[in-house]
């Protein structure tokens, strides 16, 4: 899914970088979607929509909390397996079916859903309004419903496992931050995804049963529709009630992974463990009361807008705490540059850079000029796109040996990281300037607007970075698949880490530990503890005489 999502972005970046330019190869692959090698307008919108959907839900949600939760939760809490293997399997197959349907929707008549990944009605309800709102939209809704089922089953399993199956001695305050992150993410998912389903069900009813939840006073295709009294804005409230927590569902697991990787490779305890957990909780809670900051220009009551400005900017406080705690963890550490560590430091940088522009967007008075411009595109791609994907890469490099018993190649990891961070910033940083100049997003071609000519030369630069960045992911793919078969055999605890997963044997066995389950005596971050000779102490090591435990 990730490969598909990235390739789509390259396709539409070709059009945005060089509007109207003909790329013969496009016609070969896309047929009538790219007549004469120029991307079709409807196809452009379909690609941006499905790129967004796949990236947000199928890659960043399923790829981070879906995969890493299932891998790390049992290993790091000292459990034989997840609480319910059955739920786990159901969740997996629902996801598989949902992915197939989403990709299949690209091939139906009229094309895939094209109204943006936020599928605002009435555009998404009325096939008269755009071809993508026909069969493609129906499949989108079906696919997302299955996806939510998958996500809910998975999340319930994570919560239950973390609460019930922790091994002896592993109190909540001794959990690694990864587990805390997965735990809070799962709670966010359970509370917010059902709201998306209800929004989708109402939308479906408007589409096929003639109800009017989101429709009112519409004249389209030469006909006045018999639907009055609904409100399109209602959908936006429901959608963003999921949509905003979703941002943190994507981001929090990445933050958890980077906390673990940074502490291990700085050979230092993560700074302010309790503050890190507290700020995750604060971010999780606040994420439920900020949704309408996506809706400042919908005509919503301005006073309501003020309230959401306030709550939104509050999120900056726990975020600042996290950023500074990461930096303090690096301070006077002994930093080992594994590829995972590089990606984690990169994550902190993108989290800060992207978070800061969020402060500007959260200010409703400023959002009026920036809403739906490239500034927003730059902001969220850096803060949630790059950060989450960096967290994912860090996790893969770090725990690869737990997945396949082999190591990934470090040198290729370096090349991959440096190309990715340069291209990542190269693509999304200039977008802020394009947006400040007033360029709307989701424009097929903005070259006809004279007032945008000042920043027009940035568009091809962005596209070049996007193409190089996408290509450099091939290095990662190669490294990943080649290492599965030919990578160096791993040792039990390659990173000299403290957590429980590194006490399991290298070869996979059923039930994780051959003997009895390990017993935990200390927290997950005893690195360079002056009481001990070694610069790391496994969680299973009993306290020394006179040592104060955590």
């Amino acid at each position, binding site marked *: 899914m990730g490969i598909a999502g990235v390739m789509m972005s390259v396709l539409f970046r070709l059009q945005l970088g060089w509007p109207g330019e003909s790329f013969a190869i496009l016609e070969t692959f896309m047929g009538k979607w790219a007549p004469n090698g120029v991307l079709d307008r409807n196809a452009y919108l379909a690609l941006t929509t499905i790129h967004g959907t796949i990236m947000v839900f199928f890659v960043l949600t399923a790829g981070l909390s879906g995969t890493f939760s299932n891998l790390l939760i049992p290993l790091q809490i000292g459990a034989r397996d997840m609480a319910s293997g059955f739920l786990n399997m159901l969740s997996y197959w629902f996801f598989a079916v949902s992915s197939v349907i989403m990709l299949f929707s690209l091939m139906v008549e009229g094309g895939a859903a094209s109204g943006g990944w936020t599928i605002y009605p009435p555009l998404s309800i009325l096939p008269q*309004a755009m071809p993508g709102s026909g069969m493609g939209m129906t499949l989108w809704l079906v696919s997302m419903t299955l996806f939510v089922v998958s996500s809910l089953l998975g999340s319930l399993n994570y919560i239950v496992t973390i609460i019930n199956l922790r091994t002896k001695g592993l109190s909540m305050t001794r959990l690694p931050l990864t587990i805390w992150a997965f735990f809070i993410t799962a709670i966010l998912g359970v509370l917010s995804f059902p709201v998306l389903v209800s929004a989708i069900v109402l939308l479906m009813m408007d589409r096929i049963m003639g109800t009017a939840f989101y429709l009112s006073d519409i004249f389209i295709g030469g006909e006045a529709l018999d639907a009055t009294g609904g409100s399109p804005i209602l959908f936006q409230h429901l959608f963003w009630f999921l949509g905003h927590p979703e941002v943190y569902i994507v981001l929090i697991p990445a933050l958890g992974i980077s906390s673990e990787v940074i502490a291990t490779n700085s050979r230092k305890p993560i700074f302010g463990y309790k*503050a890190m957990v507290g700020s995750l909780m604060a971010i999780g809670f606040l994420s439920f009361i900020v949704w309408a900051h996506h809706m400042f*220009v919908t005509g919503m009551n301005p006073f309501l807008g003020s309230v959401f400005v306030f709550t939104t900017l509050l999120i900056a406080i726990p975020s600042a705490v996290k950023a500074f705690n990461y930096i303090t963890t690096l301070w006077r550490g002994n930093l080992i*540059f594994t590829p995972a560590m590089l990606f984690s430091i990169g994550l902190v940088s993108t989290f800060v850079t992207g978070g800061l522009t969020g*402060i*500007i967007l959260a200010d409703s008075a400023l959002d*009026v000029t920036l809403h739906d411009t490239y500034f927003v595109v730059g902001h969220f791609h850096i803060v949630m796109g790059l950060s989450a994907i960096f967290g994912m890469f860090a996790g893969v490099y770090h725990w690869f040996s737990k997945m396949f018993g082999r190591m990934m190649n470090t040198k290729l990891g370096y090349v991959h990281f440096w190309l990715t961070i340069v291209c990542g910033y190269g693509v999304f940083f200039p977008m802020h300037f394009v947006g400040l100049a007033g360029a709307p997003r*989701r424009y097929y071609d903005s070259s006809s*607007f004279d007032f945008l000519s000042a920043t027009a030369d940035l568009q091809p630069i962005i596209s070049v970075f996007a193409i190089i960045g996408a290509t450099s992911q091939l290095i990662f793919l190669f490294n990943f698949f080649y290492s599965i078969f030919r990578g*160096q055999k791993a040792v039990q605890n390659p990173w000299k880490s403290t957590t429980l997963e590194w006490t399991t044997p290298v070869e996979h066995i059923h039930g994780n530990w051959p003997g009895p389950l390990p017993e935990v005596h200390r927290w997950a971050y005893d690195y360079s503890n002056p009481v001990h000779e070694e610069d790391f102490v496994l969680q299973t090591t009993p306290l020394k005489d006179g040592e104060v435990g955590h």
Partner: protein
Amino acid sequence: MKLLILLVIVVGVIAVAQLAKIYQLSAHMRGLREEEISEADTRMNSSLWIVFMFVFFATTIWQFIRYGDYLPPSASAHGESVDTLMNYNLALVIFVFFVVNTLLFVFPYKYRYNKNRKAHFFPHDTRLELIWTVVPSVVLAVIIIFGLKTWAEMTGPASDDAIRVEIYSKQFDWTARYAGDDGHFGATDFNLITPANPLGIITVEGVKVVNDKVSGKIAKLQATLDIEKGYLLAQKSDIEATLHGGDSHGHGDHESHEISPEQKAHLEGRLQKINDVLSSGDAVVLSDAAYEAKEDKIFRLDRHIQRVLELQPFEFSDGLNGWEVGKDDRIVKGEFHLPIGREIEFVFRSRDVIHSAFMPHFRAQMNAVPGLPTRFKITPTITTDSMRTILDNPEFNYILLCNKVCGAAHFNMAMGIVVESQEKYDSWLAEQNVYAAEQN
């Protein structure tokens, strides 16, 4: 083309082979395990952080110099406050950006791995953590206060003498409407939209036009259905069955089969008509689906007429008839004008999907939502001519763009705006189309 694809595949295979070679070589040459980072690698990566920092910061500064004056000065009164707020916020954000990223990139250089050193055990420090909780809180409080002040200024109610302009959107163009000499906008209803009345302004004539038009459509559809062959044949056999009731059915004792002579005459007349149509060759053949679609269409058109009938006349408080005031409304397409220095209250409406009226030069944006009129007020402060002088660009024009994806031609949905003196504006407005005139 095929050659090119072949070439790509060949290059791909070579690349993979090369990568595999590098992979193996790098593993052998180092003679180290993957997790053991050599001193050379540590040095290289720590230096790369510094290089990256300088390049990143330099390009950031370059972008600010090259693209920093992103938009011309604000052409509206509230926009000046917005720009000031933006500048302060940007300055703050950029400052934090540089400080935090500097720390983040210098630390990896400074504290790179050294096997002779042990990291400093520093699990927490309440004082430090308090500092970076309280300081951001205070700074954010300031941002919130100034932000909300500007927000309140922008979104407060418009004054009584503001000029109201309606901006009407549909796929894929904009229409502006100004109230006529009576100072009132005519009421509108989406059921009254016709090509000649694109905004659906309610007038007695408009109601009649739509009524006639929709009734005409219904009659035409009904006429087609009336001569549909399959339908006629079915009806024919029904009538025949009724007329010869009991003959073919075993339960002739049913009372319903007793038909009166009048009924019989009526049915025979009907049967005659059906036979006439069938023998004349006028009958049309429709598929079941097409027949049902037409029936469905008639049902919807009936509902349309019903909704039009439900429209109620009303009077304004000053006694003007609500169905009369729309007649002198002025309707403008392509480009609309605004007088300088007057408060303008826009009312946004949409016919089909959500659009967004984005006027970047006025720092203004508001969604146009079907069924939900929205408002936004601005006071233009710079005329188009002055702006052309300021920018030294005789081609410059203010613009209204659609900024909510609305379909294939979304990116082309724009309208020009001209700001000029009150006198010029008055004379321009006097020349614009009057709605009633369009009806004739």
